[in-house]
Each structure stands twice: as structure tokens, then as C-alpha cells.
């Protein structure tokens, strides 16, 4: 490894970065790169459409809500989910990209879990889809590890000082999903009714499931 010792990473890139040639309007910038790659046959327009359609219409927080609702009504499933989330989630046919190694963390009256990625924007795609803008924002990434209680207040969540907050910073390829507590007064609801109560934010830890009125 000694020959690699003195590599400075920035020497890999010429001072004049290729990206500096792009037009300032981002829409035009994407159009130029997209058209170039399409004409060179390096990407296929039908593939782009299929990808966008998949995450706009098929893969999103409704998947995660089904996982949570099943865990609320089926204690054996909940055990499997907390023990080996990847396999338990695969039972519902949710798997793959950015969810290859799942861990589910359970909220209890004593502990509240919050998920963040301070280094980039790691997020469990098969169960929650593409992360929302706030999750990818500098504000959320910088502040959540240092002042989670202030951050949660901005989401309208005020936690008792006695409740322990655990912040999970997704620094590797493990992807996290929060199992929120089942709301009170839902004893007579079935799994699909319960799934309607599970909000996206409740599975990130920045919200709670909907209360029944």
C-alpha cells in the first residue's frame, strides 16, 4: 500500500471540472446530459420512464405502512421483523435496492427512534420510496444528531424528557425503519385500516401514526 500513501484525492480531477462546462439552468443541464447519453445508446428512454413510474406510483411509504400494520396485529411477525427485518419484509415481497440489509427499531413508551443520514441521504427505498426533500436537507442532516428534540418539535412532536431518544445515523448500507407504537383505541381495526394510520414520518421517527378521531 505504500505506493498509494501520498495520493491526494483532488489530484484525480483536473482543476477545471467537467461539470463546470454545464449550463447554469439545471433543466437545460439535465437535458444536455440526458440527450447525449441517449444518442450514444448508453441509456434507454424506456428504462428512465420505468424507473420514474416505479418510484412515483409503485414503491413508497404504503409498503412500509403494510409492514407496520402487520407487526401490530401479528406478534409472531413482529418478532421476525425485529429479529431479521430483511427476511420479514421480503415476506411481503418488498426487497432490493437500498433495502438489502434492513433493521427495524421499535418505539416503546421509554424509547423513541429517529433515522437520519448525516453523510448523504441513505433511506430504505423498498419500504419508503425516494426520500422527501427535508430528509435530504442540510438542516435535517446537520441538526438531528446534535439536537433531535428541537428537530422533532419542528415536526410537531414534543417528547417527554424521560423518553430516551435514539438517533440512528445510516453511515453504512444498513437501512432503518421505525416501528411506531400502535395508537390507542384501535383494538377493533383490521390490518388494512391500521395501515391507513401509518404515516411516512412515523416510520422515520419524525412523526406519529394518525390518531383516530
Amino acid at each position, binding site marked *: 500500500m505504500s505506493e498509494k500513501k*501520498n495520493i*491526494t484525492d483532488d489530484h*484525480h480531477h483536473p482543476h477545471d*471540472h*467537467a*461539470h463546470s*462546462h*454545464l449550463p447554469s439552468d*439545471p433543466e437545460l*443541464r*439535465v*437535458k*444536455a*446530459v440526458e*440527450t*447525449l447519453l*441517449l*444518442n*450514444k*445508446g*448508453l441509456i*434507454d428512454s424506456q*428504462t*428512465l420512464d420505468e*424507473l*420514474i413510474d*416505479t418510484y*412515483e406510483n409503485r414503491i*413508497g*411509504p404504503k409498503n412500509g405502512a403494510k409492514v407496520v400494520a402487520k407487526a401490530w396485529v401479528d406478534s409472531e411477525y413482529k418478532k421476525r421483523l425485529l429479529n431479521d427485518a430483511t427476511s420479514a419484509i421480503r415476506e411481503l415481497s418488498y426487497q432490493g*435496492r*437500498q433495502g438489502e*440489509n434492513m433493521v427495524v427499531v421499535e418505539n416503546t413508551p421509554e424509547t423513541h427512534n429517529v433515522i437520519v443520514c*448525516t*453523510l*448523504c441521504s441513505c433511506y430504505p427505498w423498498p419500504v419508503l420510496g*425516494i426520500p*422527501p*426533500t*427535508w430528509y*435530504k436537507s442540510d*438542516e435535517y*442532516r*446537520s*441538526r438531528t444528531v*446534535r439536537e433531535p*428534540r428541537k428537530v422533532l418539535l*419542528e*415536526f410537531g412532536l414534543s417528547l417527554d*424528557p424521560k423518553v*430516551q*431518544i*435514539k*438517533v440512528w*445515523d445510516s*453511515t*453504512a*448500507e444498513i437501512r432503518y425503519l421505525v416501528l411506531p407504537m400502535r395508537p390507542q383505541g384501535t383494538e377493533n381495526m383490521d390490518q388494512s385500516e391500521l395501515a391507513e394510520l401509518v404515516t*411516512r*414520518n412515523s416510520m422515520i421517527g419524525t412523526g406519529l401514526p394518525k390518531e383516530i378521531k
Partner: protein
Amino acid sequence: MSRLHDMGGRFGDGSIPVPRDNDNEITNSEPTFKYEWHAKAWAITLAAGALGEWNLDISRHYRECLPPKDYINFSYYEKWLAALTNLLIDKKLVSLDELKEYVSAAKNGTLTKFSDKDIKLDHRTWLAKDVQKTLGWGGPSIRDTNVNSVFDIGDKVITQNYSPNKDVSGGHTRLPKYAMGRVGVIHSYHNNHVFPDKNAHGFGENPLPLYTVEFKSSELWGELAESQNDSILLDLWEPYLKLFPH
């Protein structure tokens, strides 16, 4: 030293941009992509990645290596597109002259997409019929190796107190600055995973033991900690850690 992407704990950022609906209620159902160009920038990055010329760690590191002024000024998907552009040039999928030609065509309004019959697909190109299959497989980072883990659950460990990447100065790492030189406890073990510090620089996968390490909030933030009770958990590879002397 670190780079701008490593922002955990930083001061100066304002309120979280929490979206609200017309009744001023917090909403959970924003559109997946706010603008069409966001969707396109995201999709062409995935599709170009599928050509197999770089891995996830390399593409992350290219985003991190954007010059600080650009990193700060670019929105999320602008960072993706800029890093993709640099990758396309560095990996010689596209020449700088080609890029300049398309950029000036875009500026002059003369950008033309060839008709499908005039496009010859590369043999590596990701086809629509394979999209669901490939997404379903994903790209697991876990590897079967004979490397045994050194630490046990409950062990007290201290993290490296400077960038752990020994091969490349300013190289890629997944140990954030805010957790460097801090004492934590091994919470769980995840077997061996591809080591980004090597993989991001083309030095091979070098799978190594990965742990979740729990840090008390007060260990990371001292008197600034909001509660002595809270903790922060990070997923850290073995080379980032040393047993903490008792």
C-alpha cells in the same frame, strides 16, 4: 479534516423545511419528484450507474469531491448531475468535446434526440425489461468471508480521531467527523460488508466486520447535549475502532 458533506452536528443551519398543506398541517405526501428534471437527473444517474463502470462508493465520493463552493450552491439533484458528469468524463464514456457540443446545442435550442432507429444501444445498457428484476436484486454489500470480528457486543471502543482513510489523503470514509475520537459501546454486529474506504478508490471490496456503535449524547456533545439520556448510533467498520482501555 473532512469535507462539506460531513455535516452532522454543524452549527448554522436553520429550521427543517417541513412541508405543510393548505391547512398548515404537516404533510406526508409531497410528490416524489418536485420537478421533472429532478426525476430525470435521478433516473439517468441510476441508468448510467448500471453500465457497471463505477460502484456506489465511487459515485458517493464523486459527489463529496465537488468543490466546496459548488457543493454549497448546488441543490440535491444538481450535485447528482455534476458528479455524474465528472464520472462520465473520467471513465471515458463521454468525451469533453462531446459534452461541450451538447451543452452548446442545449444553450442554442438545437439539441436533438436521434430517432430510435438511429440509436445503437451499447451492450451494457440497462433495458426497461430488466428494471424490476435488477431493482429487486439490489446490490447487497454483505460478503461471506473468513474474516472474524474482533469486538463483542458490549465492548467499549474508541473511534479513530482523524480520517481513517490511510491510502488516500482526503479519501472516502464513512466515519463522520462528529464521532471521531469518541468512546462508544458495540451495540450489534452485522457480519462483513464491502469497505467503502477502499471500494471508493478502486482498491477492491475488502469486506470487513461492520458494527453498530452506540454513543451517549453527552460523549458527542458534552454540555450541549439536550439530554444525558439520549444516544446516537452509527454503523462503523472495524478499522474505525479500537478497544477502549479500561
